[in-house]
């Protein structure tokens, strides 16, 4: 398979690269601005210490793990339709992990000290555990792609695929544990969070895969087999239902505990923006509407599936905003049974207004993922499988 591009295709590609580079550069400039002036130029404060960059970063890191499901279904569970998609899934995973980590690192108070994180390792810190988990995923996915794309290495696809599958489950568990181990705050400290993050990763990863796959096929002038889309859209629907189930379990258990009731009332009913984002953004537009687009008879066509996937992605941002920001603005319960006040926000709902540099840094991270993906697809032709060929194999098998 030789790569041949027409002049107009090349022009299109370079325009996209230039666009990606521009957004990434703006993101880096925003990070530089934040580093120069300090976090005072963000919307963050002493109560809301993780802001919009964390929403972007956690989305990308969770989706980076989830997108590998497509690879796992092919390599570990032997489904041929998915096997051809494994290289694209691997490339996307590396791209999103790189984008997410870039945002996370650049949002540090001292990003220049990132080497300190690599040389001083606290074994009790989940953050520290995540460092080898992230680098391990880069390594294993690279190995996996080598096994997939290099004919002589094909025999290693299954064992390496199993290793990647196991690793990504542990990695997303680690991401969930960042919050599950926080006993201080009412929004976190729950054992349901790691499985919730795991199922969220399945959903968001697959939604991202749908969108990227459709875009890449369209831009590269290839056609996507509707039968494959049909199969994958049903899987997305099941994952959306799974995420809804775990999010409901998390809130319902909280509602049942009297000490958590005030927090749940805030998030689900009284908290202004947060209930709106939760019910409107996540439940309605991010879950129920996509389910209709996927499962309603007469719908479920490619464009509806892409629309459903885009809605799932937007819904995931709404959910993460409620989870991360909403979880911090609600006051800590330090003195149960007392009305509390101070000049440090005790007993009060904190305010948070994300600033432009935070958004720009987040979009910069997305642009890094975008660049890695489009360049990867351009350089490695076999990232986009030729479905008709595969179907013949499948029928023969």
């Amino acid at each position, binding site marked *: 398979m030789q790569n041949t591009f027409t002049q107009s295709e090349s022009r299109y590609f370079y325009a996209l690269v230039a666009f990606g580079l521009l957004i990434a550069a703006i993101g880096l400039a925003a990070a530089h601005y934040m580093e120069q002036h*300090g976090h005072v130029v963000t919307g963050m404060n002493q109560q809301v210490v993780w802001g919009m960059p964390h929403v972007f970063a956690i989305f990308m890191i969770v989706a980076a793990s989830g997108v590998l499901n497509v690879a796992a279904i092919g390599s570990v569970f032997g489904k041929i339709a998915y096997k051809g998609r494994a290289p694209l899934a691997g490339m996307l995973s590396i791209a999103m992990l790189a984008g997410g980590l870039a945002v996370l690192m650049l949002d540090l108070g001292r990003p220049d000290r990132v080497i300190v994180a690599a040389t001083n390792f606290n074994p009790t810190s989940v953050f520290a555990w995540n460092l080898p988990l992230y680098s391990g995923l880069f390594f294993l996915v690279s190995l996996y792609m080598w096994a997939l794309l290099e004919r002589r290495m094909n025999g290693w696809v299954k064992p390496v695929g199993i290793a990647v599958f196991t690793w990504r489950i542990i990695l997303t568990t680690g991401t969930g544990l960042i919050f599950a181990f926080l006993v201080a705050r009412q929004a976190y400290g729950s054992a349901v969070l790691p499985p919730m993050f795991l199922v969220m990763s399945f959903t968001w990863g697959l939604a991202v895969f749908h969108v990227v796959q459709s875009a890449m096929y369209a831009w590269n002038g290839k056609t996507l087999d509707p039968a494959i889309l049909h199969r994958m859209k049903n899987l997305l629907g099941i994952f959306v239902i799974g995420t809804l189930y775990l999010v409901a379990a998390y809130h319902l258990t909280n509602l049942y505990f009297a000490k958590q009731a005030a927090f749940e009332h805030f998030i689900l009913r009284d908290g202004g923006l947060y209930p709106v984002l939760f019910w409107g953004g996540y439940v309605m537009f991010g879950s129920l509407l996509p389910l209709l687009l996927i499962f309603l008879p007469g719908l479920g066509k490619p464009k509806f599936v892409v629309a459903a996937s885009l809605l799932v992605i937007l819904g995931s941002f709404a959910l993460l905003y409620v989870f991360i920001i909403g979880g911090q603005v609600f006051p800590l319960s330090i003195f149960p049974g*007392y009305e509390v006040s101070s000049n440090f926000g005790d007993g009060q709902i904190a305010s948070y207004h994300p600033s432009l540099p935070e958004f720009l840094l987040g979009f910069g991270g997305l642009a890094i993922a975008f660049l890695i993906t489009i360049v990867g697809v351009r350089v490695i032709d076999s990232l986009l499988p030729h479905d008709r060929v595969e179907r013949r194999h499948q029928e023969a098998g």
Partner: protein
Amino acid sequence: MSDEVNLNRRQFLTKASAAVAGIAIAPGMLLFDFAHGRPLGEAASNAVRWGMLIDTTQCDSGCNECVTACSKENGWPEAKSSTDVQWIRKVELKQISTGRQSSLPMMCQHCAEPPCVDVCPTAASFKRADGIVLVDKHRCIGCRYCMMACPYKARSFVHEAVIDHDSDMPRGKGTVESCTLCVHRVDKGEAPACVEACAKAGHRAILFGDLNDPNSEIYLRIRSVTTSQLRADLGLNPGISFVGL
């Protein structure tokens, strides 16, 4: 008979003068009875556990002396906006069931099992052998995970460049900081600035000392009155206890 009376009067006067002298130097001596400072170069020992007992019944809601003293001692400007740091703050409380009002100073609780130390990826947050929880400012990468983990909201993130800071207390933009229990003073055998200021203001609401020393006043007080720790349900065993909560 009259000689006997004079003798008794003399004894009385002697004892009374001793008692008056004792009361007069109380702020300097009695409120914080730790043995002595540590010689330079000697490591902190786990034979000692520094702690405080805060009597909320003695804390005046209008008084901010402890906060001002801490700010001055450690070189952080008193908070004006939601991004400003605050190592110690005054919290006003009203019991919902009874309406009883009280006031207390709130700072790092110097937990025996500090969650901030557990979660810190670079081990910049650490606990000294004598129970003082600190941040190594040269190792902190500013991830703010410790602030997410602290149940007392005791830590602050430096949002802006620090213009002039005290040589005893280096501070820097992009790192996290909190009450050090005035470690630089404690190591010299002095009491934390807030303790001294509270005594000077006449409230004597903060008692500082070695929780491990059976002869220390803090040890004896904790044995004799009902005290409580904040969020005791979390099992973190803070070094700061309260009376009247």
